[in-house]
């Protein structure tokens, strides 16, 4: 057995043993009430299996999606630990990983300080759905925030301060983060340290209106400096905006992102990224309430002159139509047709069928 495989197996066994131990202590997410006497542990699991058929492809077939374990521990009234661990099918076997690991101290509703590895709070989807396919309405994430995306830095490692802003019916809340920026592989986070001395920072302001219950709007800004392979640095500024109607009849999610990338040594070399998606779903009423049809349109545009992403062939257009069937309280079946146009101009149709589930006692 080679060493990486041994290491992966050890990590997986460790995660499973953690899950088993915690499960043995208290496996309920919404547990029977009692007077708390000590730490509380909660465990959840997510998984999905898909069938994908692409036109012009002989690679149709079944795929095992990510298997995800979520652990949370409440170590007193103010201190908690959250972990999200995944196992992902690859051609070379299964890759295990720490998706999120957060140590959090809640001083009050206004000040909650945490440290760890996060999904970067840019826009709505990236920090709203994480790795549980069951949670999201659609089969897959929008292209701009897909796992491994180069448009949005999906993960960041650092510290985050968040909380409510006293604002009455506006229901404002904020997030301010500081951490390692993109890795030399720009789709990855700096898990083992930053690749330069300039830290990435971000600010997000959201409103969960109390008057218009279900409405969530937000603005965000992200800044980083990224060293290129030739030794020059690129300044990245990203502005994001989202508007969400979170109720299900209808459910509306719109997200927009604009990034500028500029070579620090020569500001004439720069480029822009514009990416957006709009998704509308509708939970049917009455006895058909297990069904939720949806559509989504998305577009990503990257300038060829962009010094960071211009050569990455990220232009993309897509239309998605599908339906979600919640046939069980903890499992759902989704059927989705996608029409996608990639950077090379080739248009592709594909059909996806996915069963996803959550393991919890809530």
């Amino acid at each position, binding site marked *: 057995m080679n060493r990486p495989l041994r290491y992966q197996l050890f990590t997986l066994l460790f995660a499973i043993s953690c899950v088993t131990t915690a499960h043995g202590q208290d496996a309920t*997410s919404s547990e029977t*009430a*009692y007077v708390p006497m000590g730490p*509380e542990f909660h465990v959840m699991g997510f998984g999905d299996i898909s069938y994908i058929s692409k036109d012009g492809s002989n690679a149709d077939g079944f795929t095992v999606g990510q298997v995800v374990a979520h652990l949370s521990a409440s170590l007193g*009234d103010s201190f908690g630990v959250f972990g999200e661990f995944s196992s992902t099918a690859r051609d070379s076997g299964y890759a295990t990983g720490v998706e999120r690991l*957060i140590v959090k101290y809640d001083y009050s509703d206004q000040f909650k300080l945490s440290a760890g590895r996060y999904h970067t709070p840019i826009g709505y989807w990236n920090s709203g759905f994480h790795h549980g396919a069951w*949670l999201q309405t659609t089969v897959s994430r929008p292209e701009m925030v897909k796992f491994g995306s180069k448009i949005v830095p999906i993960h960041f490692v650092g510290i985050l301060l968040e909380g409510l802003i006293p604002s009455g019916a506006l229901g404002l809340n904020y997030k301010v983060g500081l951490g390692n920026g993109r890795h030399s592989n720009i789709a990855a986070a700096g898990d083992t340290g930053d690749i330069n001395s300039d830290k990435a920072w971000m600010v997000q302001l959201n409103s969960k209106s109390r008057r218009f219950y279900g409405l969530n709007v937000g603005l965000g800004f992200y800044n980083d400096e990224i060293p290129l392979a030739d030794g020059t640095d690129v300044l990245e500024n990203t502005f994001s905006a989202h508007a969400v109607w979170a109720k299900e009849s209808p459910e509306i999610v719109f997200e927009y992102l604009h990034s500028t990338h500029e070579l620090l040594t020569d500001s004439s070399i720069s480029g822009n990224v514009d990416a957006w998606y709009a998704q509308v779903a509708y939970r049917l009423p009455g006895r058909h309430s297990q069904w939720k049809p949806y559509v989504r349109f998305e577009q990503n545009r990257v300038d060829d002159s962009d010094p960071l992403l211009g050569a990455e062939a990220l232009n993309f257009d897509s239309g998605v139509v599908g339906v979600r069937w919640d046939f069980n309280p903890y499992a759902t079946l989704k059927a989705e047709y996608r029409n996608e146009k990639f950077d090379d101009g080739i248009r592709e149709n594909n059909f996806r069928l996915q069963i996803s589930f959550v393991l919890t006692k809530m």
Partner: protein
Amino acid sequence: MRNSFHNLHHILRRLVVAMGLLIVGSVLFAAEELTESPIAIVVHKDTPVENLSLDELRSIFLADQQFWSNRTRITLLVRAPQSDERTFVLDRIYQMSEAQFRHYWIAKMFRAEVPRGPKIVFSTGMALDLVVAIPGSISFTRADAVTDNVKVVRINGLLPDEDGYPLK
């Protein structure tokens, strides 16, 4: 002998009918009593809150607000599924179905926004006992079942027995 058996059969039949009517009457009376009794929001006696707007109450029940003003963490106690009080609260405060309620809390925990979901209680007595026992706790119960050792919170400035109370 045949007459005695006939009389016994007659009496038994009357008894069964009477018991049936009694059971149906009790159920109808209980249902009537529940629908006529508003839902009271109760908190631990030391909790520094007297009045909440319905929007503020929703914010607490959604765990968007997780602390009282004295920085005590709020512990939400929710009745188990299929209780009338839970159905009422899901409909009027959460405006969610049972499935949406479950999905909401799973997502909330998965986003690491809360360390735990609401605690489940199985009876009015259990809800009241735990509100007394857990500082910072909040729950809901039929107003006519409220005991003196918990504090009833005004909603939109009104108590459950006042006109215009929003949780009737």
